[in-house]
Structure formats: structure tokens, C-alpha cells
């Protein structure tokens, strides 16, 4: 069923020295923000990850972190790609060119987390109303508790 993930990570690490390292847990790769697009093109092209399973962001105290899950149809091998973004102005390349699936998910991440995706065709809010102030999923957005 799922292909062995370790050799794939080795191949990625060798082809992008310095920018890609293996993550702590299995099947995970840390990628520098600048090298994201070439890594993803290689993953999609040669390594057969033809579907973007999930795309989300996490607001850690010291930095933002983009988390991409890639999946290979039909043998369902999963690769997790993480990218660290600086806290001030989180920007990352948009993957709409590779997977149109990224379009709505990036708009949602921009809307809720405030991460700017360069090269996205129409980066507008998707869930919150257009005139909504702030990005609700950030830790500094405090919910007004009831009574």
C-alpha cells in the first residue's frame, strides 16, 4: 500500500542541501520559505504526490508555521511539509499554480490567520465578511467570553 516514506525524504534532502531537513517525527520535512516552490514542484512532478491533502497554518509564540500535507493517489503515501514564517509579516509562495485545490484553502488561511500568499489570483477573505477587522485564529485575537 503506502510506499516507504524515508527514501523520499532522503531524496528531497539531497536535492535541496541546506534548505530541506528531515523533521523530528517520521514522514515530515522542514523547508525554508524561499525553497518552497521548487520543493513542491519536485514532490508533485517526480515523487508522485499528485494531491494536496491539506494546507493550514499554526500560530506558535515565536513564529508562524505553514503545514502542508501531500498525498499520492492511489497508494495514499503521506508527506508533511512544514515551513517556518517570521512573526512580523508572514509571507509564502502560493501553490495555486501546482494544485488548484490550494486556492480556497489559502484564501481561508489568509482570512483566519493573516498569512499573505504571493502569486494568489484573488486573495480575498472567504469565510469572514469583507469588512472584518483582524484575523480570528491568531493567538492575539481574544474572544469576548459570554457574561
Amino acid at each position, binding site marked *: 500500500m503506502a510506499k516507504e516514506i524515508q527514501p523520499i525524504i532522503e531524496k528531497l534532502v539531497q536535492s535541496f542541501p541546506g534548505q530541506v531537513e528531515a523533521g523530528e517525527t517520521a514522514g515530515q520535512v522542514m523547508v525554508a520559505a524561499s525553497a518552497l516552490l521548487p520543493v513542491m514542484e519536485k514532490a508533485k512532478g517526480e515523487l508522485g504526490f499528485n494531491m494536496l491533502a491539506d494546507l493550514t497554518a*499554526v500560530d506558535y509564540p515565536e513564529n508562524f508555521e505553514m503545514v502542508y500535507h501531500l498525498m499520492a*493517489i492511489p497508494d495514499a503515501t503521506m508527506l508533511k511539509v512544514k515551513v517556518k514564517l517570521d512573526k512580523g509579516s508572514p509571507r509564502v509562495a502560493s501553490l495555486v499554480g501546482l494544485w488548484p*485545490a490550494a486556492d*480556497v484553502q489559502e484564501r481561508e488561511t489568509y482570512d483566519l490567520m493573516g498569512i499573505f500568499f504571493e502569486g494568489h489570483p484573488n486573495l480575498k477573505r*472567504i*469565510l469572514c465578511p469583507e469588512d472584518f477587522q483582524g484575523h480570528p485564529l491568531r493567538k492575539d485575537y481574544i474572544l469576548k467570553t459570554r457574561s
Partner: protein
Amino acid sequence: MEKAMEREVFRADSPRTETITMNMGPQHPSTHGVYRAVLTMDGEEITHIENHVGYLHRGIEKLAETRTFTQFMPYTDRLDYLGAMLNNLGYAQTMEKLMGVEVPERAEYIRIIMAELQRIASHLIFVASYAIDLSSTTGWMYCMRDRERILDLFDMVCGSRLTTNYMRIGGVAEDVPPGFLPELQRLINDLPACFDEYDGLISGNEILQKRSIGVAPMSAETAIAYGVTGPNLRASGVAFDLRKAAPYGIYDRFDFEIPTCANGDTYDRYYIRILEMRQSVRILQQAVDSFPEGPVMAKVPKVIRPPKGDVYHQIEGTKGILGFYVVSDGTSKPYRLHIHSPSFVNLGVFPEIARGGNIQDAVATLASIDIVLGEVDR
């Protein structure tokens, strides 16, 4: 000035026709909830569709950060409110993967039975809403009548018909009552006859076939590129089902096929769900035959504090692959909880495949993709 002048020049060859923009939703009989599509139409033919979602956005992911892990379980019922059991299963299995909890045998079997019953109930709603969107109200009624029996089974097991909140991290809330299995067996014996009735009334109907065959075809490449999963992907000919490709729980012990259709048009997306329901009945029969005894809940502390770290787990929901990404920082509340909802991604492909048809096709195509707004907006 001259720009306006130039526009006034009457071009004899192409009569100046204007496109009208029309609002379909958020209050519209066939948008399956509060979803708004702005259609740019040239006469009856649609040239461009723009999705507007977010009317049902409750911010479940933000709420999760102020709820403990057990408290979040009832919120998962409200994601795909037609598939509460499957959302519970997805969240429970994600946490068990993160904490390494071993679920007892009987609980695994109960989970399979509940998941497949919920799949049938959700597909019945799909068949009903597809039939009524093509104005066969009788088809809608028959599906709802059969779905009632499944909801009564849920009521017997966990006390509520729709928002079940039945699964817990480490097993299930309560064991099935004694009267459950015989009632389930009667349902399994009756279901195939119901499916034949739908085939006779809805699938075999020439008018419905003429209105769905060849409408809004979706090729396998477009489906994979747009991240479409579940029955819609299988309708385009890709035999990919997580229950077979990456079996979670004890799905590898059951033998069932993954039905696929050839050309991924609206009729295939409709008919594949009936085939899947027939497979679910097979799984249910095998689960009932080898139903073990034993406890239904693993040894799990009252307040759950998973180890630091993150986990991503996917299950095969009714609308597609439902994923939960949980980041925990060791406390009893999740640091971040992201839900990958299949309807949100499947909706992304709707403007792509519905372009070119008229408004009647758009209604049929939207019904065939089967979106639930609770899951789209979270």
C-alpha cells in the same frame, strides 16, 4: 469621451447582448444550506460562477482552543451535521493516534457499524436531495422514510438522532442495548429492497438520465488537481478509498469493493452513491456476524493530557476525506485544531465544471457534488 463613443457604434454582426448576474442563494431552495453563487448568465447559459461562503462560519477551530479534548467532541457533530458519527470517529481516532491509546475489539466493531450506518443515512439524504432538485418529490419522501429507521437505531444507542456525540477518545460512550442487533439485522435485510425501489423510481428514469448523463463531466485530472475526494473522485474513475488504500480502525478485516464509474458526470456522481450504499450493507452484515464481546472503553484518564506534538489523521467521510490536524502543547486543551473538510474543497471545483450549462444543470451539478454548509464554513 471617445471610449464611450466607440461603444455606441452598433456592430451589425454581433447584437449587443448583456449578461445578467443572478444571485443563487443564500436563501435558495436548492443550495443545500446558506451558500450563495453569483451566476453571470448569457440568457439561460451560465458563463461564470463565483462562490460566496461563510454564512455558517461559527469559528469551530477557534472555539476548540478554549475547550478540553473531551469537550470538543459534541462540536464535531455540528461539522457535517448529516454525518455526526463519522466526524466523531475521525476526531476520536486522531486523538488515539496522538496518545497511542488501544481501543478494545468490541468498540472497534461498534464504530464500524455506526460509521457505515451513518454513511448510508448520509447517502440517503444525498439521493433524496438530488431527486428533489430535479423535482421528483416522491423520491425524496421514500429516501427520508428509509432514513428514519437508521435514525431510530442511533436514538436507541446514543439518545439523539442527529448530533450523536457517541464516540469517546478510547472507545464509545455506552455499549449497544440488547434490542439493537436484531433491529439492525432487520434493517440490513430490508435495505437492498429499498435501493431497488430507488433504482426503479429515480436511477432508471429516462428524464432524470437525460438531465444528468453528460452534464458537467469532471475528468480524473481535474478532480485530483482540485483536491476532490470521496464519491465524486471515484465517479471520475479513480478507485481511491481510504478504507482500502490506508485502512484505519479494523477496515482491513472486511471484504467489500470500491465501486467506480467511468466518465464522472452528474449521473455517475449520483449512481456511485447507490453502489456505495450496497457495499456498506455488506460491511454491516459482516460486522454483525462477527460481533465480539468485551469492554467498550479503554483505560483513559478522566482529564486527557496528550503528549506534546502534532498529528494529522484522515478518514473516509461521506463527502470525501475528512482530516483532523491537532497540535497539542501538553495541556488539556488543544493548541491548534484544524479540520480539513471535503465539502469545502469539493465546492471549489463547482464553478469549474458547471460553466457552460444552464441554471437547471447548475442546480443538478451542485446537488451531485453533495456539499453540507456546516462542514464548508466550520
